[in-house]
């Protein structure tokens, strides 16, 4: 069984593309070989900045011969049909077989395809792989038309077994395959021949190339750690930087340098970000002081002066970069000391989104909302509003201009410099959080208020202008914002009347300048009704009900004014957008809870209950129900409930009455019936106070205790008794079951 080695040697492949390229090379080649009838034992795939390598073990030497049968026309078919069949199979008539088929005799063509040697298949598959390689961005070079990520220089492709190695002949874009490659650009530039993967890897190592990305990562991590340790420092781990650097070097040589004293006063985040973004340095921290005092750069070469020149050069570049950073920092601190008014002014000229106004408009909205939310999260309204007004001012700072990823982090430093209390400063840093599903959720009340207000403003704004996420497109990260709200609310046990808040934010947009065209039209009431998702009649009715009389003379401006004074939430009229946005929240919540093992039907059962826009309440309910359903009693109770409900519903439909008068225990005839009365009384005594406390767990536990008496009742008692008084009493008893159980959730929505 031969082994296959492929190396595609090119100019420097961007580091970020290498992982994807390794996967693609492996998949395209192995899929192609298997499809052509070859098998292989194991596959290894590697990359360096200049090469993409695939090694396959135990490839079959040739594909199996296959024989393919095709049924043709009947032997008595017209000549034209036979000619067509011969043409399509490429056979002559004497090569066809005649076989009996049902009633007639039919021609059969048996096409035998001999097995093809592996080399032939590999050549075809590799050529197609190179020509169809899924680079995120590819290019042409010189006078050729082949596309690759950067100019492709050589193709090494050999099959080797005990008897030796042979080149698989192919030519792509004028590049013939061979069995030679080169080592490190500076430390091993001579070409050499290879006979197998082992030979290749060993020779490459001698020519100062570490083939395996994982090995280079390990060498960098290990080397950096040792260097830092020897200097009394520790490396700040950065997984993505490590991967990137390992994709930039063939022979990693970590070097440690000290950050000049003059820059040690810069915030750690600034040092780290500047060194990472501009120079791809790791940061080294002094564990005693917690300060970033050193850096580790990874060179791609061993030098006679042990990297002294390289380190000196890097230090020089670092000094220039950090001088800039210090300049920004000092200037920003000066503005911060004076209260950041300069930045606040500046944000009036920065557009947030063309229809949603300036950053300054946005901040005003967030501040008002933060004030409103503050009491609900235990924050002081004045302080929450103030914090919201400061939270985004760092967007105008020079440092955030240079490093946008430091937004918030810098805001905290500048707020402290301005003499703001810790809680306000922390809100500047934390109000963007949580950013991802695993990002920590802020818990300080002021931070929570501003973080919620920020996200809710973004969501309601984009909903109002109809810029919602579609499919995979979510350019404003609205899904993330909604999940952020959900996690903030749940993480802090906050009760929000979400629908009311959403509507109070969205409806004013209708009065906004960018909706002026609605108001300027002849039939503006129709437009408004459509915007709100209600009928024109309902709108007129609402205007009348709220005492705002209009007639045909009412000027649009006047109407606009009247309209703006209505508290739509108060009259339970929520706009279409608000309801739609709430549904979006519910969808995100379902995804979130599903990850926590709560089924969608459980959530639906709880969504059907009143107050389902209070996410904290909803999740409490859903969690309790989900837990109940995991118990044997809980599962069976649902069956009992459904049975009771079905019988009752049918009887009510048939009799045309509602059996809600309350059953009389005196009319109970059997022990089981009496036991059910007692059980319901006991359950109710527990459930009612628990529900008041929103202690759904206790309520549902009490409820699931009903399982045995309900089962026993159904087993022994005939509901439709001959005596109509007894029957009515029993139906009224079923109604009590329904009443007690449906207070927690709509159990009819539970599946199974």
């Amino acid at each position, binding site marked *: 069984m031969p082994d296959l080695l492929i190396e595609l040697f090119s100019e*420097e492949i961007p580091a970020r593309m290498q992982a994807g390229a390794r996967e693609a090379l492996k998949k395209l080649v192995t899929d192609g070989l298997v499809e052509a009838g070859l098998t292989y034992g194991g596959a290894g795939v590697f990359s360096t900045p200049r090469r993409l390598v695939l090694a396959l073990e135990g490839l079959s030497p040739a594909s199996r011969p296959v024989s393919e049968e095709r049924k043709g026309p009947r032997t008595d078919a017209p000549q034209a049909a036979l000619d067509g069949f011969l043409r399509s199979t490429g056979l002559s008539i004497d090569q066809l077989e005649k076989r009996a088929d049902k009633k007639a005799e039919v021609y059969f063509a048996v096409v035998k395809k001999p097995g093809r040697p592996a080399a032939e298949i590999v050549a075809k598959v590799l050529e197609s792989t190179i020509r169809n390689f899924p680079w995120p961005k590819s290019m042409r*070079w010189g006078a050729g038309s082949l596309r690759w990520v*950067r100019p492709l220089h050589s193709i090494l492709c050999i099959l080797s077994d005990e008897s030796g190695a042979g080149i698989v002949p192919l030519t792509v874009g004028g590049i013939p395959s061979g069995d030679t490659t080169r080592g490190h650009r500076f430390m091993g530039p001579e070409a050499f021949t290879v006979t197998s993967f082992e030979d290749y890897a060993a020779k490459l190592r001698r020519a100062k190339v570490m083939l395996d990305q994982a090995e280079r990562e390990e060498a960098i991590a290990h080397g950096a750690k040792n260097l830092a340790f020897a200097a009394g420092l520790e490396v700040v781990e950065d997984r993505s930087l490590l991967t990137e650097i390992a994709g930039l070097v063939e022979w990693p040589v970590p070097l440690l340098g000290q950050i000049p004293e003059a820059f040690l006063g810069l915030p750690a985040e600034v040092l780290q970000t500047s060194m990472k973004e501009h120079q791809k340095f790791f940061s080294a921290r002094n564990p005693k002081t917690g300060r970033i005092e050193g850096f580790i750069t990874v060179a791609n070469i061993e030098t006679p002066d042990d990297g002294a020149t390289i380190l000196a050069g890097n230090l020089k570049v670092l000094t220039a970069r950090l001088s800039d950073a210090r300049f920004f920092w000092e200037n920003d601190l000066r503005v911060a000391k004076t209260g950041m008014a300069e930045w606040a002014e500046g944000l009036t000229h920065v557009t947030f989104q063309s229809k949603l106004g300036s950053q300054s408009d946005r901040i005003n909205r967030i501040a008002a909302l933060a004030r409103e939310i503050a009491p609900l999260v235990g924050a002081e309204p004045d302080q929450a509003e103030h914090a919201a007004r400061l939270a985004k001012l760092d967007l105008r700072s020079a440092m955030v201009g240079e490093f946008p990823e430091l937004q918030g982090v810098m805001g905290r430093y500048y707020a402290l410099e301005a003499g703001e209390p810790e809680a306000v400063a922390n809100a500047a840093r934390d109000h963007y959080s949580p950013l991802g599903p695993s990002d920590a959720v802020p818990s300080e009340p002021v931070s929570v208020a501003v973080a919620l207000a920020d996200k809710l403003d973004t969501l309601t704004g984009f909903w109002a202008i109809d810029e919602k996420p579609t499919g995979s497109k979510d350019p404003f990260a609205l899904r993330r914002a909604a999940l952020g709200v959900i996690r903030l609310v749940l993480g802090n046990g906050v009760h929000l009347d979400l629908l009311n808040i959403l509507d109070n934010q969205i409806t004013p947009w209708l009065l906004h300048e960018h909706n002026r065209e609605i108001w300027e039209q002849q039939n503006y009431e129709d437009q408004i009704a459509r915007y709100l998702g209600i009928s024109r009649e309902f709108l007129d009715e609402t205007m009348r009900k709220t005492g705002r009389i209009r007639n045909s003379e009412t000027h649009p401006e006047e109407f606009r004014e009247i309209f703006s004074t209505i508290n739509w939430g108060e009259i339970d009229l929520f706009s279409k957008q608000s309801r739609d946005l709430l549904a979006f929240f519910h969808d995100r919540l379902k995804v979130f809870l599903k990850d926590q093992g709560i089924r969608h039907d459980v959530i639906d059962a709880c969504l059907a209950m009143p107050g389902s826009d209070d996410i904290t309440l909803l999740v409490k309910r859903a969690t309790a129900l989900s837990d109940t359903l995991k118990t044997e009693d809980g599962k069976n109770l649902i069956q009992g409930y459904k049975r009771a409900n079905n019988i009752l519903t049918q009887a009510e439909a048939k009799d045309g009455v509602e059996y809600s008068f309350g059953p009389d225990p005196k009319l109970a005839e059997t022990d089981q019936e009496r036991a059910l009365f007692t059980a319901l009384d006991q359950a109710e005594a527990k459930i009612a106070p628990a529900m008041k406390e929103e202690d759904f767990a206790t309520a549902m536990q009490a409820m699931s205790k009903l399982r045995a008496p309900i089962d026993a009742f159904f087993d022994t008692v005939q509901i439709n008794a001959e005596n109509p008084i007894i029957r009515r009493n029993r139906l009224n008893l079923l109604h009590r079951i329904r009443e007690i159980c449906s207070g927690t959730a709509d159990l009819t929505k539970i599946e199974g």
Partner: protein
Amino acid sequence: MAQGSTAGSTTPQSFQEIILRLQNYWADKGCAILQPYDMEVGAGTFHPATTLRSLGTKPWAAAYVQPSRRPTDGRYGENPNRLQHYYQYQVIIKPSPANLQELYLGSLKAIGIDLGLHDIRFVEDDWESPTLGAWGLGWEVWCDGMEVSQFTYFQQVGGHDCKPVSGELTYGLERLAMYVMNVGHVMDMPFNSPDAPIPLTYGDIFRQTEEEYSRHNFDGATTGMLFRHFEDAEAECQRLLDFPALDPKTGKTIIMAHPAYDQTIKASHLFNLLDARGVISVTERQAYIGRVRALAKKCADAFRQTEAGRDAAEPDAVPA
């Protein structure tokens, strides 16, 4: 590359020595050494020897110094690294030779960078010029963490696919020279030999002009006039291209692609000045860039109709 090392190894003593060594090196490698384009441009790429000549199939190899102006980068001569007027060294070869990376590394050696002692890296950096409607793939080249050059394989210029592809090298001369000669502030860098009878630093020559132009770019230039000149350049570019190709006086086909392109360069520089004056809003910015790009595209279209820009394979390009 052994023969390329002759000029290398010793450290240059002055800014001009670095330029001279690059000129000699690329002349040695067969490039036509051109002179700077005699107009205000933002980068060496604007020289028609690069923009226009990268179009069409005719082989081309040129190298030149290009004084470049970026009005917004003015710092009154105080910033150690930033200038509103600086020099780029530009190499353009079509089709890009297979050994372009080695040729480039040879040029570093020629200016005194010991490749066995430094860490040279090709770091992904794709180039795009929205004003020229051009883009390419390549790298920024790092020497010990310092970006010393831009290395690009042109894929499209003026909206036209580059076939064949040109390889473009751009050296930021001041930064590179400061690094090679270990100078901390650009104004302290020796321009001619420190041993010359009259030694001159970069600052002796440019400190005053940096001051003057910084004031001019940020506060002095008359914006109304600049806006007007922009409109004029735009109109003139269009007018020149609208001429019928046949010149009645000579009876020849003469398409005025280069004179029209001069107007594009002018419009681009005027836009840069207006930008520095802070009178172009964020939304207008895109519109102005789009207008310059439209001109660049039209010039590229016109150049493709000329002798120098035509594809050799086109039947009408074959002499009758």
